[in-house]
């Protein structure tokens, strides 16, 4: 099977160059246009519109100007009934909004810690699964289950598992502490609870754990496919030269997996930037705003507080973070990955 990545080679020789038929000249537009139109209309246009809104004072139900007009009995006018002032106040506010800074910090925590945990454990599991063992097919199927589960349900599962009193994990911990201290479980005044979701720092970690539970299998499956694509003779040659398994891992497996690793980390990182559903059902952003993510704060600003223009402005702050993250990784990819490995 042909697997070209860098260059797309249109296979029908006839459609290359000048000898393209008139029918094809029309058809090539017909094939691509629907997708491009949808993306232009529903992705690119809203993006610029949102950028425009972020420089105004539009709130839900109109702008400040429009509200004043309504209260003095004048008909609303202007674009979509929204008469507005152009202002920089939203971007001004970004710099002093304490809650926004906390949300940004939390989001970066989720992204970086989450990506690290998922990559390390995903890689270790892939190394293990790359061996031959009985029941491999079933294990693969089991691995897919968390990925298919709705994040909202993952959140509820997490709450059931990490409840400080009634969960299996709390139960296990209680038994462990009782055994450790050598006291009977019932009757002694044992205080053995962990604030999984009730303490800010703990809750951030717990949320990363839930996201990791769902996505470590994804990282594993991708890396596993990458490992299986590495030809056996490279290992064979290394073995003949007397390399240990550890050396083979550091010198062969890891470098050859580098492009794929960067892709997986990039995908996971970009996805974690969007995190909202797990947090909504577990902590609701609390305690205080200790686990609030940027997406959640943007959503609240727009729908709960009705401040459309400010929500648009902070969504662009999020976009800037996302772009920096992606650029760093794509840049790393170009530097770390030797040419011709793709």
């Amino acid at each position: 099977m042909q697997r070209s990545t860098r260059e797309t080679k249109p296979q029908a020789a006839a459609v290359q160059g000048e000898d393209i038929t008139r029918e094809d000249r029309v058809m090539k537009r017909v094939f691509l246009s629907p997708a491009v139109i949808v993306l232009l209309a529903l992705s690119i246009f809203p993006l610029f519109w949102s950028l425009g809104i972020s420089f105004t004072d539009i709130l839900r139900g109109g702008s400040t100007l429009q509200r004043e007009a309504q209260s003095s009995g004048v008909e609303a006018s202007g674009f979509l009934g929204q008469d507005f002032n152009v202002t920089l106040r939203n971007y001004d506010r970004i710099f002093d909004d304490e809650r926004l800074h906390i949300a940004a910090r939390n989001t970066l925590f989720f992204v970086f810690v989450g990506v690290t945990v998922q990559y390390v454990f995903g890689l270790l599991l892939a190394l293990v699964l790359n061996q031959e063992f009985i029941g491999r097919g079933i294990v693969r199927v089991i691995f897919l289950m968390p990925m298919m589960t709705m994040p909202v349900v993952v959140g509820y599962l997490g709450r059931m598992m990490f409840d400080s009193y009634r969960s299996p994990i709390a139960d296990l911990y209680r038994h462990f502490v009782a055994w450790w201290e050598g006291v009977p479980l019932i009757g002694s005044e044992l205080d053995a609870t962990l604030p999984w979701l009730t303490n800010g720092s703990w809750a951030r970690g717990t949320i990363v754990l839930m996201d990791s539970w769902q996505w470590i299998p994804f990282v594993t499956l991708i890396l596993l496919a990458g490992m299986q694509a590495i030809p056996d003779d490279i290992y064979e040659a290394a073995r003949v030269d007397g390399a240990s398994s550890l050396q083979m891992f550091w010198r062969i497996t890891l470098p050859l997996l580098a492009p794929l690793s960067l892709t997986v980390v990039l995908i996971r990182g970009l996805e974690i930037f969007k995190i909202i559903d797990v947090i909504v059902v577990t902590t609701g952003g609390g305690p205080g705003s200790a686990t609030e993510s940027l997406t959640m704060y943007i959503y609240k600003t727009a729908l709960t507080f009705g401040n459309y223009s400010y929500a648009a402005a902070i969504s662009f702050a999020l976009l800037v973070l996302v772009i920096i993250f992606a650029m760093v990784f794509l840049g790393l990819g170009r530097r770390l990955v030797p040419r011709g490995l793709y």
Partner: protein
Amino acid sequence: MTRRPIWQTVLLYAVVLFWCFIVLFPFYWLGTTSFKRQLDAIRLPKYVPYYDFEPTTEHWDYLINVQGDVTWRHFRNSLIAASGGTGFAVLVGAMAGYGLSRFRYRWPVLNWNNDNIAFWVISQRFLPPALFVVPFLIAYTNLDLIDTHIGLIVAYTMFNIPFAVWIMRDFFNGLPADLEDSARVDGATRWTAFTRIVLPLSAPGLVSVAIFSFVFSWNEYLYALMLTNFEAITMPIFIAGQNTQRGVEWWYISALAITAVLPVVLIGLLLQRFITRGLVAGALKG
């Protein structure tokens, strides 16, 4: 393969079993909780039915018989929105993927070739959806699309297209053009060749794109949250909403969660090979 020492084999099975346990235990817990009496669910954890606690079907009875209409309404909303979004995305994605694989484009001004276009398309998948909250809210309010199925289908089509194009393009790249070429020599038009020859041959690719789009849309939360408020609410929003009403009723939530998760997980188990293939294609080419 050289024989590995026994301790490695033991370690291997230990790790595999441990991870399977980590993955499966929460699902086991979900299942048992949906059969627990309320007191059994809110006190110290009970693990084994008939031994630790006496199972009851009252919550399932409540979900299916008492609340049947409500459950079905949200389930149906999810079904409509996800299928609609999937259908359009597969169609549009297959067309664009075919175009990008078989023709040579060069966009004026930007001077983009096929690879640039494909990269632009897939990059849309990774834009944070939070960027679209405000424009979608304003546009949907003005167009009266809030709380409608069409509104959700449009949004889901939009976010599924990039992935569909990406996967289908890769799939068509691996599909030899000879068959279409000979059909066209025999007088078939490009479009007939596409619908009669290319599409049937690419069924595996289409299935894999359809599964992914369906699962993404089925599990989607943010768009559904902002674009619906009563009539068109989907399962994720409905389930997340149980958080606040009448305290947390774990037994009812568990039953509801199983209802929502089971269809997708079943699809996943049955069509496992298409998923792995799609995942790998999506990432290897990234």
